[in-house]
């Protein structure tokens, strides 16, 4: 069948199960856009900035487990995606991005809106393609989806010149992939799995350190089975949050720079770490040489290059967490670890970490607690990066798997608005709260228009302290409170801003109004923005300063500024 390149792109996307595309048109990609009306099953959501398209595709992908798809035009359209692509790469989020490129004859001539986007995105994609022949499109799109969502997921960019979209060729559904160099190891090695079971059997103080891989492979039940069978406390990474129910007796928080003190201490005292789909990020390890120095390590990861990268590992297992746990659970003996669990309880009692100060003032942590209460831990929480991110991770009680979406690895402020949009598109009936700071919110707030246009009932909570709060906290602690360029004195009136977008806006200035406002937002049928005017100089604790150890942890401030 004769088809134009653009039609083949759409046909191939549908074939791969794509139903939503986030994007914005421009000259080079116009032939693709002009084809969209022929494919009504391909819903296009017109964003206001390409970064929004990338983060929205990211949010959509995390919730659905399917690759998120984004379109952008050549040059600035493509470069605007870069932040979102890098964020997805760092957090192993599957995406397929189609960019328009200048026509083949113009490539290399510095033509209008020409950018070498495959060159630019080379280190921040799992793989990328420049398609120079329309005959290759169908195969490339198929390969792009396969690469994006197999093995360790990640973003794949497909750059297509304008004239390739318009080229008419014979279309045939590609039957097989031609990727001789790409064969992810999914099933763990049986001998290694038995060795891991032996280590678990002999451990007195084991902990599970569960990362994003547990969520990506949807290994919740297998994780729970392992934890319950061998009675092993479960600690998660930031991106692993919600992979294990927080009301479970074995749940032992999350560790690291701003994690719970008892989690970091448990890792420090442990004699075995069972690391599942995680990568020993510096925010968790601090000083690597002194990180959990008494423990042996079992490291399960689908990406062999993560094993041995940061810490040396006693039993490496390359494979998909779910597959490996299914086998491992058969070899693991039931156990009680009574003394160790008692010790964990003592750690939790002695280092409660997340107590709120007794104050009448409106503090950000209280807002998160109240959102958690009102939504009953049932919402999908999407955060930006900074203090509000840490408080959301600490104080929201996540009940559902995969219910925290946050830019962990790349720490991208501005993620919260478009990613919440993507999450809401993925879960039209679900409750999605975008928890933002006043800083990050202003980086991508243009997507409010997209949210209104598509009638997405996202609830926004801006924890407005008039500062780039986390940076200010570092200035307070490490730079003698010299607040250089962190105060936001020119913030808009966020309620009026919301109203300008025809979004319901609520301002909360008093502690007693918080729950009422959250309930009002929940009852409103449509997007709502709540501007919480919180204490300006509230800090995130516990805190292990960068590169330090659990012994350097500041658990609670000596004099908390907000205690009145």
């Amino acid at each position, binding site marked *: 069948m004769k088809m134009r390149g653009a039609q083949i792109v759409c046909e191939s996307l549908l074939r791969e199960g794509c139903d939503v595309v986030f994007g914005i048109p421009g000259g080079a990609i116009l032939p693709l856009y002009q084809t969209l009306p022929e494919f009504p099953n391909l819903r296009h959501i017109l964003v206001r900035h390409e970064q929004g398209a990338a983060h929205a595709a990211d949010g959509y992908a995390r919730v659905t487990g399917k690759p998120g798809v984004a379109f952008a035009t050549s040059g600035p359209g493509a470069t605007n995606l870069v932040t979102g692509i890098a964020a997805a790469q760092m957090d192993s989020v599957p995406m397929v991005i189609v960019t328009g490129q200048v026509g083949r004859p113009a490539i290399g001539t510095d033509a209008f809106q020409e950018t070498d986007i495959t*060159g630019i995105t*080379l280190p921040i994609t799992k*793989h990328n393609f420049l398609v120079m022949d329309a005959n290759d499109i169908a195969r490339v799109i198929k390969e792009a989806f396969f690469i994006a969502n197999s093995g360790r997921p990640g973003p794949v960019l497909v750059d297509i010149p304008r004239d390739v979209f318009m080229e008419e060729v014979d279309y045939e559904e590609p039957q097989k992939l031609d990727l001789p160099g790409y064969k992810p190891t999914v099933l763990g090695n049986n001998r290694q799995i038995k060795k891991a079971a032996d280590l678990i059997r002999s451990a007195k103080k084991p902990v599970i350190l569960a990362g994003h891989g547990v969520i990506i492979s949807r290994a919740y039940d297998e994780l729970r089975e392992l934890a319950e069978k061998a009675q092993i406390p479960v600690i998660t990474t930031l991106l692993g949050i919600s992979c294990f129910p927080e009301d479970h007796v074995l749940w032992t928080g999350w560790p690291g720079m701003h994690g719970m003190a008892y989690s970091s201490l448990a890792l420090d005292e442990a004699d075995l770490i069972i690391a599942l789909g995680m990568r020993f990020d510096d925010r968790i390890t601090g000083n690597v040489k002194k990180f959990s120095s008494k423990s042996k390590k079992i490291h399960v990861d689908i990406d062999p290059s993560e094993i*041995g990268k940061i810490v040396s590992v006693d039993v490496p297992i390359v494979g998909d967490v779910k597959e490996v746990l299914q086998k491992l659970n058969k070899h693991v003996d039931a156990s009680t670890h009574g003394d160790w669990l008692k010790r964990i309880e003592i750690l939790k009692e002695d280092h409660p970490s997340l107590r709120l100060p007794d104050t009448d003032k409106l503090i950000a942590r209280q807002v998160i607690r109240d959102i958690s209460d009102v939504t009953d831990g049932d919402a999908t929480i999407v955060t930006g990066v900074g203090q509000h991110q840490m408080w959301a991770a600490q104080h929201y009680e996540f009940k559902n798997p995969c219910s925290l979406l946050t830019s962990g690895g790349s720490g991208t402020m501005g993620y919260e608005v478009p990613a919440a949009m993507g999450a809401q598109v993925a879960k039209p009936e679900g409750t999605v709260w975008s928890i933002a700071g006043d800083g990050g919110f202003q980086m991508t707030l243009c997507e409010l228009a997209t949210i209104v246009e598509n009638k997405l009932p996202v609830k926004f909570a801006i924890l407005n302290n008039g500062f780039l709060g986390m940076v200010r906290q570092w200035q307070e602690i490490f730079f003698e409170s010299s607040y250089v360029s962190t105060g936001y004195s020119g913030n808009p009136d966020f309620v009026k801003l919301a109203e300008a977008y025809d979004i319901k806006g609520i301002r909360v200035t008093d502690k007693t109004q918080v729950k009422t406002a959250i309930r009002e937002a929940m009852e409103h049928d449509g997007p709502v923005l709540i501007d919480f005017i919180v204490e300006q100089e509230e800090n995130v604790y516990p805190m292990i300063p960068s590169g330090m150890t659990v012994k350097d942890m500041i658990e609670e401030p000596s004099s908390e500024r907000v205690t009145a």
Partner: protein
Amino acid sequence: MTTRIDKHTITALVEDQPGVLNRISSMFRRRGYNISSLAVGQSETDGLSRMTFVVEGDPETVEMVAKNLHKLVEVIKVVNISSDNTVSRELALVRVNADLTTRSEIMQIVDIFRAKIVDVSQGTLIVEVTGDENKVDSLVDLLRTFGIHEVMRTGTIAMSRGVSFEGDTSGITLGKQS
């Protein structure tokens, strides 16, 4: 354990496509690995090239290099052949000063190294030498005393001796651990 920093030889079978070298060099740069030489050429199979890298680092670093190479979609097979049981060769062309008084001395040295003189002009000779890195280094050092104009080296290529274990199955083979 003390860390050993020395040279390791890794070969990679890669798809012969535009951008592959860029992808590989970008990975080396991004991860901060040092390549002391790199040679690329066609392999025995159409559409596939074989690259030989000489990498500096401790064994752990070299293992990470191999893993990260293998992670690239277009890299089909990675083999660490750092062991004594390999043949490694490099080719160099050296343009060296040679007047009537020094020419015969240079020719003797070239003979000893089983190298060749491939061009003679009024004041210079071009010497072609093949051998492992040490041999080429030694000859270049000796010729330096006569005054070298130009040195061109291909970088090392290497192959393990005996029965091939670099068949067409993909994966990573870490020489010493396999």
